[in-house]
């Protein structure tokens, strides 16, 4: 079955034991995103901190209802972005989006994507791409809001 290539062990592990799940304080922005075709939803919070004048992802916490792909993808997202500068994290996010839109044609860059390469198989199932992107899009939105609220250099340490 092709199922194993879609549901790689890493995905199933994250699904069964999601990382950083639950909503936490403090946070700079919170968003609620839904997948209107299936009703899957995620509430996601982003906390940023300032490191040498550059915004860094301090924490990502979330509460989500959804399928294995959306749950695992959000869990992997937190592993990939927490501790990175926002600029680095946005690059990873862009790379992940490109992988999802590749229809399975591109070779994912494991150095950039880490565990997120496990979602390679999802790109072959167009109906599931939105599942994989739910948490990532919410994170991007929350981060943009957090940055907008903070304004340039408005925040030192939290």
């Amino acid at each position, binding site marked *: 079955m092709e199922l194993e290539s879609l549901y790689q062990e890493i995905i199933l592990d994250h699904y069964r034991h999601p990382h950083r799940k639950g909503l936490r304080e403090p946070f700079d922005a919170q968003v609620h995103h839904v997948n209107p075709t299936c009703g899957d939803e995620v509430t996601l919070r982003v906390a940023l901190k300032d490191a040498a004048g550059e915004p860094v992802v301090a924490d990502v916490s979330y509460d989500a209802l*959804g399928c294995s792909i959306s749950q695992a993808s959000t869990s992997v997202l937190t592993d990939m972005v927490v501790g990175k500068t926002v600029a680095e994290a946005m690059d990873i996010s862009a790379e992940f989006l490109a992988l999802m839109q590749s229809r399975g044609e591109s070779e994912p860059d494991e150095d950039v994507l880490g565990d997120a390469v496990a979602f390679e198989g999802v790109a072959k199932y167009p109906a599931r791409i939105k599942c994989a992107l739910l948490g990532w899009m919410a994170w991007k939105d929350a981060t943009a809001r957090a940055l907008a609220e903070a304004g340039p250099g408005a925040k030192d340490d939290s």
Partner: protein
Amino acid sequence: MTAASETVRLGGAALSPLDTEAVRADFPILGRAVRGGHPLIYLDSGATSQKPRQVLDAERDFYTVHNAAAHRGNHLLAEETTDAYEGARVRVAEFIGADPGEIIFTKSATEALNLVAYAMSNAATAGPEAERFRVGPGDEILVTEMEHHANLVPWQQLCLRTGATLRWFGVTPEGRLDLSNAAELISDRTKVVAVTHQSNVTGAVPPVADIARLAHAHGALVVVDGAQSVPHRSVDVAALGADFLAFSAHKMLGPSGIGVLWGRRELLEAMPPYVTGGSMIEVVRMEGSTFLPPPERFEAGVPPAAQAVGLAAACDYLDGIGMARVHAHEEALTAHGLEAVAAIPGVRVLGPLTTENRGGALSFVVDGVHPHDVGQVLDELGIAVRTGHHCAWPLHRALGVQATTRATFYLYNTHDEVDALADGIRQAQKFFGAA
């Protein structure tokens, strides 16, 4: 019981069973292999049905020989196209026991329902004959919690445009309409009662004729969403007791892109238009225009003649088999499905657990496996189902679930396919360690 009298059942031994093999031979797509060579098991007819060769041929023949713009031009092809289009109207009318003048072709059941809702707000600026359709503050529009979004959102929007109030029937834990407060909900304030003829999620069949009687006693209009009933059982508008009935061709073996609104003639005659433009006008001057009588008043633009021809061929096909036979076949599949799926530990079927006043939509949740993931495993086995909230989000909320997996049965499905579904669910449980 009125609901049962709307449901045509097997008349004793008079009716031979449906010949599934012969039916399947008419549907080329059912011969397809999918996902690594599995034969296609299509259990998503509630979303859209497959099309028999006879429907495909009718459309192809129309385009190959007759194609022109109906109701325009006086050349031969235009005449033939007009005849074909109007002939389709007669055929569809016959299919539901209506007069041809009461059949309006729309682009979908969704548009048919919107047509009524928009005509009602357009009534505010129409002549005195449209008085019957006017709603405003203090008036109430009554819907149900089990509606498809297509028979809910247009009414919410009508309330926003007019200041009317939206109210609704709830559902019982079994997924039936909760009519316990019907006497309170339906009052002289009620201007419209909009209700489904069969839930697209649970298959529950509300007692539409009873509801219509109550609504009419208070002068309300009754709008019925027949998208899930007309394809699956004999529907006769006289017995239905409603004022409007909407359904779509693509769910009843016909082409996509065409739907039907049936309405009582005296209502259609008084109802203002929704979409305006060519074909629906009587006289146009720069200062203003007058409109044609129904059905043309509601069919602006070049009509979908090929689609109408395809729909008429679908009516021929279904009547050729017999709607009673189609219904009996689906009822047997549904009974089998209810038994086989509900028997799996960790699986909960939503809605009624018997086939009494229940059609062939089988929605379920699997403990520990999200519907998307169930659907993915089934797809890998060649089984096409729908996952999500099936455009009935409030119903899912009312039944305490976020999303479901839904199998829907039609005349071409087999008992072996029902067994394959149950087996596939067990495989999904196993794969996700939920068994």
